[in-house]
């Protein structure tokens, strides 16, 4: 027990646990929309795109949040624009935009020298250097994103499920799509430090997928995904200390374990459940 609590003597670890739990919950919440809109790849791409902004701002000495934030928002809106125009292959266009940005980040680091910890941290996540400011930043983003989802819940659900009919019913689907991309960019930006660029997609997708296996209701899926994400972040961060691995991989591995467990359980439940007998209509 003492062994488990020992890391809490360190302030950076306490901050790290808070940030990881919040980050996990936040990604879980946003991930529901990402998964249901079939945007998992966009989340993955966007986090890589933001890495370019991260590298550029690190080297130019610009504030990280400002630099990567502006870059992230621009990439998000660009991706959103590309996906709405379905004539060109959206997936290919996203692949180009985001990997080019990622490559630019790598190139910048290669030319101007890696700055050790921050480079690795951006790629794989780290809790070293997580300060009170980071805790407040992610708390702010979490409140903002929850607020957006709370107050646009109905329109966002309609748009996610049935964009055409939603639009015909007067729901501003284009604006909601853009809003969702901004929320996604903010989420990635805020959680990048702890989770790492390469692994953020997993923290977006896994909690939502596990939640989907456990419920058929949208409202419950949202709550479950946020809870599962937070739990995964908390457990993963503790594991990362005890196993001495980066926080990103630890959190993703815990999520993957939960996924496997949920998959096994829901598979067994499906086998036991009699085949669905529709009532006569």
């Amino acid at each position, binding site marked *: 027990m003492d062994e488990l609590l020992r890391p809490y003597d360190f302030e950076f670890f306490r901050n790290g646990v808070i940030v990881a739990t919040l980050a996990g919950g936040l990604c879980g919440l946003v991930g529901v929309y990402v998964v249901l809109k079939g945007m998992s790849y966009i989340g993955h791409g966007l986090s890589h795109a933001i890495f370019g902004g991260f590298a550029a701002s690190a080297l130019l000495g610009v504030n990280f949040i400002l630099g990567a934030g502006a870059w992230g928002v621009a990439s998000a809106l660009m991706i959103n624009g590309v996906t709405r125009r379905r004539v060109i292959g959206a997936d290919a266009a996203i692949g180009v935009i985001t990997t080019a940005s990622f490559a630019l980040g790598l190139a910048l680091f290669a030319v101007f020298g890696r700055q050790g910890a921050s480079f690795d941290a951006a790629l794989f996540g780290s809790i070293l250097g997580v300060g009170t400011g980071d805790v407040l930043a992610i708390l702010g983003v979490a409140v903002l994103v929850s607020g957006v989802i709370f107050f646009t819940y109905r329109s966002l659900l309609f748009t996610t499920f049935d964009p*055409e*009919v939603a639009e015909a019913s007067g729901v501003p689907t284009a604006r909601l799509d853009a809003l969702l991309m901004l929320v996604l960019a903010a989420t990635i930006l805020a959680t990048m430090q702890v989770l790492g660029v390469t692994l953020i997609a997993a923290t977006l997708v896994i909690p939502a997928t596990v939640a989907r296996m456990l419920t*058929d209701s949208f*409202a419950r*899926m949202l709550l479950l995904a946020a809870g599962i994400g937070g739990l995964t972040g908390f457990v993963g961060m503790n594991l990362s200390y005890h196993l001495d691995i980066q926080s990103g991989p630890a959190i993703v591995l815990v999520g993957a374990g939960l996924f496997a467990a949920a998959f096994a359980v829901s598979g067994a439940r499906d086998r036991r459940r009699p085949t669905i007998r529709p009532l006569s209509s």
Partner: protein
Amino acid sequence: MTERSEGMPGARAPASRTADGVRGRSPREELTERSEGMPGARAPASRTADGVRGRSPREELTAPTAHDLARLERVTCAYGAEPVLVNVDLRVTPEQFTGIVGPSGSGKTTLLRVLLGTCRPLAGTVHRRPSLRVGYVPQVETVNWSFPVTVSECVLMARTRGRVLPWRSRAEQHEVDGILDRLDIVELRDRHIRQLSGGQQQRVFIARALLGRPQLLLLDEPTSGVDVRTRHDVLHLLADLHGDGLAIVLTTHDLNGIAAHLPHLVCLNTEVIGTGAPREVLTADILERTYGARMDILEHAGMPIVVDHHAAHHAADNVVGLRRTGA
């Protein structure tokens, strides 16, 4: 064919086809804008008031029948260079119960979209009664059935105005239950939408449309992929709703199962080939022009029955192909 491709922007081709009267007007200007307020929560009593009040003078001039819900005049739509609808005239009155029939690709769904307001025509005018409330029931094949929503969540989705809180109010719950009860699916309200039969799935989306208290209900192929009995049930349900004062326009490819039972039909193949009661339009001549294939009309128990002894769709494709190469 070659003429059209010569430096002419593809989208203009069909517009120039419709020729006089239409050319030169911007379709956007001519569109009667959709209602801004969309008072979902207002009682249907305001219906008659809407028809009289708030009408612009210009519209007064162009509206010969004041009580039309919507009216299309010489509407032309195209996706790219391919015209989907050409010079379509259509009136939708509050008493309407119309089936739009025609082969695949004849513009049936596009016509619904024009009525719905999601498809802006290239030429022609669309008049919609100000603050007209339209309910839309999509084709079941286009629905994402693995999406995590229960029946009541799905129905309530349509209520995006008036209340911002995510959870339903007691009054909303009551209203949803009332509609589900009316459609005989109230006991299924907590089920996932996949765990329903075809007819029940159809009803869920009809319920969602009804929650918006529409004056006009549009259904895209409401009975495709369901068995005979379900088709019959859905048809009866629609007849009941129509009896309660709801105008209905649906598309169908099913001439005998659906179309022959409706009071009014529109035969569509890019252009309107014929309109009227089934007896008037289900004739060998009109059907041949609609489907491009010869069909025989039999009569059974006072109702027309269409029989195609050739593979009708095959023939239709060939004729369309020939017409194109010929022109």
